[in-house]
């Protein structure tokens, strides 16, 4: 392998500390946050600037070797899983905020910049970057772009895609293209919009122009406990029907509440279901809306209601919700998170069916989800050391995805198709659509080098093994939060 001409070329570019080839070095890159899948790449390179990224891509193209761009590896769908004998391009050192223009309300960033860092840098100017995935303290803007990541607060202002104005990208053969610009408006097809969410298949984002918004003046958050998930769901319907447009509407079920208790000492009421609704914006407007919201909630006969008046109280309400994923890890050694979407009015049906499936499989499923936009997050718990447990969990996960499609929804709201759900994309789209996606992909990347084997089902399946939590997680370096 070390004599491979591509390796020799890479070795000329990168010092030994930035070209990783030894098994011990590669271990940390063998999977992303979907730890059920692991794969060893031929090498990991750690470029420091965009020229090195471009040169690496050109070399990969010249040597017809597939590559995977990698941010922080927090993908939950196997999106940043390496390709066997391929190259991983780790972008974490491209972590500069190149320009923060408060007057134009934009930030131009490199792809390895951590999501939260953008808001931190913008804060002194009274601005922030709106998309807030729960992983925002570790995930990168490049990863967010690839997956069109969302968060609890995307109900009102949308996902990553709604906040990316422009990009410079390296197409999979190293040709550079500029998409969009700095304005909210554009001329010609919305190319940044098409690149966002393409899961790394169209190449590597090198520079991203983000829209910044003024920090909301105030938040009003309410937590309501209900005697059933159904009742919580009805409350969501009432809130939505009222015409209020909250920044976030979240629901947790009993098992998720328990996890939040064990993992984060959230101090939530003990109940079969919790609803969190948050209004954000200008104080005068939010106060008026909050009065209406509270009246609505009272009418839905909650078991208990808590209101956050201060930033501290707000943080306490969100703490349990934001920690729910990692906390579920305390209830079982392994879990798979699903991310399907159903029409809002079918939430009740979907949850009842998930409940039924969980019982019939004898597998616990915890539910934490973005109720406002019908985005489910069933957490399927299993113990990977048990023979066949992963396979059964995956089967259950598959049934949930099919359920979402049958109800007129989507197999993924924000985590992407990745490696995990690529067999299910054809259940959502017909053969013509799949072919059109494949055609576009082939036209952009004739050799299918960029993130080969992800999202689109064509091509050889990688051989996968399951070996427990992410190596970095085992080592206590990263946490799921």
């Amino acid at each position: 392998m070390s004599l491979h001409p591509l390796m020799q070329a890479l070795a000329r570019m990168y010092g030994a500390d930035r070209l990783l080839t030894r098994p011990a070095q590669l271990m940390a890159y063998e999977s992303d946050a979907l730890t059920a899948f692991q794969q060893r790449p031929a090498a990991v390179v750690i470029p420091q600037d965009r020229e090195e990224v471009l040169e690496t891509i050109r070399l990969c193209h010249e040597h017809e070797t597939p590559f995977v761009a990698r941010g922080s590896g927090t993908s939950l769908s196997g999106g940043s899983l390496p390709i066997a004998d391929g190259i991983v391009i780790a972008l974490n050192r491209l972590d500069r905020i190149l320009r923060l223009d408060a007057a134009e309300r934009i930030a131009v960033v490199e792809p390895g910049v951590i999501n939260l860092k953008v808001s931190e840098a913008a804060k002194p100017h009274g601005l922030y970057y709106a998309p807030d995935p729960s992983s925002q303290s570790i995930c990168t803007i490049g990863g967010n772009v690839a997956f069109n990541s969302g968060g609890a607060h995307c109900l009102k202002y949308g996902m990553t895609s709604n906040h990316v104005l422009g990009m410079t990208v390296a197409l999979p053969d190293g040709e550079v293209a500029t998409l969009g610009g700095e304005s909210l408006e554009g001329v010609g097809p919305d190319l940044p919009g098409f690149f966002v969410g393409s899961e790394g298949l169209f190449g590597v984002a090198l520079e991203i122009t983000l829209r910044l918004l003024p920090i909301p003046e105030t938040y009003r958050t309410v937590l309501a406990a209900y005697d059933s998930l159904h009742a919580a769901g009805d409350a969501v319907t009432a809130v939505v029907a009222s015409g209020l447009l909250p920044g976030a509407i979240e629901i947790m079920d009993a098992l998720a509440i328990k996890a939040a208790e064990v993992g984060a000492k959230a101090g939530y009421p003990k109940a079969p279901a919790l609803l969190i609704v948050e209004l954000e914006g200008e104080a005068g407007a939010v106060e008026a809306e909050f009065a209406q919201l509270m009246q609505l909630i009272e009418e839905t006969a909650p078991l208990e209601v808590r209101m956050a008046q201060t930033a501290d109280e707000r943080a306490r309400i969100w703490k349990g919700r934001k920690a729910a994923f990692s906390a579920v890890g305390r209830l079982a050694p392994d879990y798979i998170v699903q991310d399907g979407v159903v029409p809002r009015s079918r939430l009740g049906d979907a949850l009842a069916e998930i409940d039924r499936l969980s019982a019939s499989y004898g597998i616990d499923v915890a539910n934490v989800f973005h109720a406002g936009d019908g985005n489910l997050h069933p957490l399927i718990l299993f113990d990977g050391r048990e023979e066949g447990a992963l396979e059964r969990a995956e089967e259950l996960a598959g049934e949930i995805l099919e359920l979402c499609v049958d109800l007129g929804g989507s197999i993924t709201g924000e985590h992407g198709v990745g490696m995990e759900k690529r067999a299910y994309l054809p259940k959502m789209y017909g053969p013509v659509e799949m072919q059109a996606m494949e055609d576009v992909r082939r036209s952009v990347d004739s050799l299918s080098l960029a993130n080969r084997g992800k999202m689109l089902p064509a091509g050889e399946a990688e051989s996968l093994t399951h070996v427990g939590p992410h190596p970095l997680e085992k080592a206590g370096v990263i946490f799921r939060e």
Partner: protein
Amino acid sequence: MRGGGSKPALSQRRCAEDTQLLDLAGLQGIVDYQPEEYTFTARAGTTVAEVAAMLDGKGQYLPFDPPLADRGATLGGTVAAGLSGSGRYRYGGIRDFLIGIRFVDGRGQEIRGGGAVVKNAAGFDFPKLFVGSLGRLGVLTELTFKVFPRPPAFATVEAEFEALSDLLTGLDAVTGSAIDLHAVDFAPAEAGWRLWVRIGGMAAALEERAGALQEVVSGGAGRTGLLRLYRDHEEERLWQEARTMAWLPEGMGLARVPLTPGRIPAAEDLFGRAQPASRRYSVGGNLLWLGWPESGDLGETDGKEDAPRTLHGLLLELGLRGLQLIGRGPRSEGLSEGEEGPLLGGPVQNAFLRRISAALDPEGKFGAW
């Protein structure tokens, strides 16, 4: 392709002789409306006006203020032209509200993109690709949008400024404030500039919020003149006139030019002298609507008596790009095909787009970029 014919610069452009016109105005009708899901699906030739009336019945709306509905604009044409109006400022533009499409590609296959739910990250985002596609990537046949609840009430503050620099200071103060703004438009007035800022929400809180807004507008600018508050019908009419481009003088062409507030002084340097071009800035200074005479001279900047061509040149000089919607394009004499409009300031040349086009329209049925 033609929908309602409200943007003749796009639907009646000069084409090669063997080009067929595809009239999509007959492809009409709402396919599905789910008020409780905040989504609807309609055929591409359905008019914006019909949809707006339907949504209004349920207290909902398309917050991006699709323009030119009064001239018969269709949903398909609005998407293909990539048009959003003043309300784009608040929650995003047409790109952010279009969630699903059906289109016919260059090989005659009908393809579905996106979906019917408000959140969906599965597969390539074809709906976004088709926003601004100008009919050159495929024929849109059916569209699914998400919609929002219409705020119960709106109020608009109007302010006048003597100089552009004062206006821009006021603009910065307003758009940087924590006030939730629905629309921010401005235009040259008889003397100086006029700014309109729209807020919306529950009626009970609106009076007080409008007061705070007036303070920000005047406080930030130093030299504000007349401040006026609009409510109810008068207020509604103000923005209805923005949607219909009522400011555009009879017989003038219309183009839209995306830019940023920081580029406005340079743009004004050139356009301000190019009489009798008229203009209105929208979306907080991210969009310029330009009206210009279809023929004749454009002020001191040009002696060649071809206003559209002058505009093309001015945009090139500014490094901006525009899209012509109404009116004749630059005269073709000495211009290459891509320079005749409707794309002003240079054709869209992009390696990514070229590759996408090659996949969806391998035989070049829809015309090149």
